[in-house]
């Protein structure tokens, strides 16, 4: 049972190693409260992406325990993984959009897996696309959009099912200054509505001008920067 004081994400002595002997994380202890905005920084290869992948159980830790919204990921059965992922919206640097599906269809995927009715899907997808300023482009296909627009579609897909946790893996890595500012604005709006956001970036300008905790991953350890 999750109480107001219980952290929504908890790492307890988590380690992650890749064969033959590459240590990415060693004995990481970390707690993230509900509604927090956390920036995860560190040099390339420090393990930012690995930490996010551990959270949506694309990977399992080599040791320790990870609790996400009351679910212990080490003991989570394979059949329960989809239900964990419905609580987490993931945004990638390379957008991961399907080029043969329209903007509407890309965003609708997150709702179709929940088994929502066609009308409900339509209503919510339209609302979210209006929210990210792409209501007028819902019938276009990703290759017809700019990088910033594609990232906003990716954000819309991540948030359309209203997940309590959003993981963003270098979402502005491929964007110019103006598009980066647009994405940051959206992130702050989502956070203001109560979503817990973990934002991985190596761009220090992003977190220096934003509220939120900054964690630095280096040499397998996590340290609080601010």
């Amino acid at each position: 049972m999750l109480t107001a004081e219980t952290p929504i994400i908890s790492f307890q002595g988590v380690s992650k190693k890749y064969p033959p002997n590459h240590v990415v994380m060693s004995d990481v202890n970390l707690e993230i409260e509900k509604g927090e905005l956390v920036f995860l920084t560190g040099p390339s290869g420090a393990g930012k992406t690995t930490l996010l992948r551990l959270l949506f159980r694309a990977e399992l830790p080599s040791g320790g325990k990870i609790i996400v919204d009351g679910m212990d990921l080490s003991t989570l059965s394979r059949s329960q993984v989809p239900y964990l992922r419905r609580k987490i919206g993931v945004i990638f640097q390379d957008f991961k959009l399907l080029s043969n599906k329209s903007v509407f269809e890309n965003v609708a995927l997150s709702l179709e897996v929940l088994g929502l009715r066609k009308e409900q899907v339509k209503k919510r997808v339209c609302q979210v696309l209006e929210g990210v300023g792409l209501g007028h482009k819902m019938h276009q296909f990703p290759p017809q959009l700019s990088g910033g627009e594609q990232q906003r579609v990716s954000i819309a897909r991540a948030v359309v099912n209203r997940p309590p946790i959003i993981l963003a893996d270098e979402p502005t890595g491929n964007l110019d200054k103006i598009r980066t500012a647009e994405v940051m604005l959206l992130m702050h709006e989502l956070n203001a509505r109560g979503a817990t956001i973990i934002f991985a970036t190596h761009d220090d300008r992003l977190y220096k001008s934003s509220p939120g905790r900054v964690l630095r991953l280096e040499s397998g350890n996590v340290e609080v920067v601010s």
Partner: protein
Amino acid sequence: MTLNILFRRAFSDIKQNLGTQTVTTIVVTLSLLIFVFFSFLYFNLERFVEHFGRELGVVVYLKKDLPPERIPAIFSTLQKMEGVKSVVYVSPEEAYRRLESYLENETNVLDDVDPGFLPPSFELEINRALFKLNKIRELANKVARWPEVAKVQYGQEWLHRLEAFSQLIKMIVAAGGVLLLLSAVFVVASTIKLTVYARQEELEILRLVGATNSFIQGPFLIEAFLQGLIGSSLAVGIIYAMYTYTRPMLAGSQLLRGLDYQFLPYTFWVPVIAVTTIACIIGTMFSMRRFLQL
């Protein structure tokens, strides 16, 4: 999750990959077509063998020196035997008359022959329900052991050859059927595997947004179901069309000796369609196993 969404996704996939889907269905049809065609031939051949075998009677030749007063007792015993429908006694004189009639203009060969030189015999008509070659063999062997009987004839060689041929065809059809079904399943499963490879990115995104395995697998299973069902139904339909087209041509043919040429019974083709469809679904499930491991 509603079936509605799975069907919508499946039909959308079929529309996007119509060419591949059609080719796969045609391969299933062709594989099944060969099997159904040979089954159809075998079915009619078996009926022909059975029909012809029933026409052959059993002839029991008695010893020439048999006292005539023993004949009614033998007649009565034969009549009571299981599988015997009727018994006709052929006296030496009747046999002689038949021989004369058979020889027609050549009767002079019988000029100095005693009219009673042929042995008396019984002609047995076999009950159709009982007809099985081994049953007739049993009956003939049993009667042949009686001391009054000289010889028993029932067209052994003919029936043995026909039965051996029929068994050979049966084995070929059964083995061929299994191989063709396996090849059809292999083609369907491979096509689905290729489709899955081509759509790996989509499956990855589906997994990411929380799709369950049944949501991911559902549309592919629906596609396999349709390919198996349509492919096998088409094969049965083509053979049925061939049957209705050729039936009037073969009606009354001397070759068939008045036997009605028939289509395969539904107890055969319904299971063939069902097994093909189920096999295509199972093949697809196996080919997708690796992709569904999270």
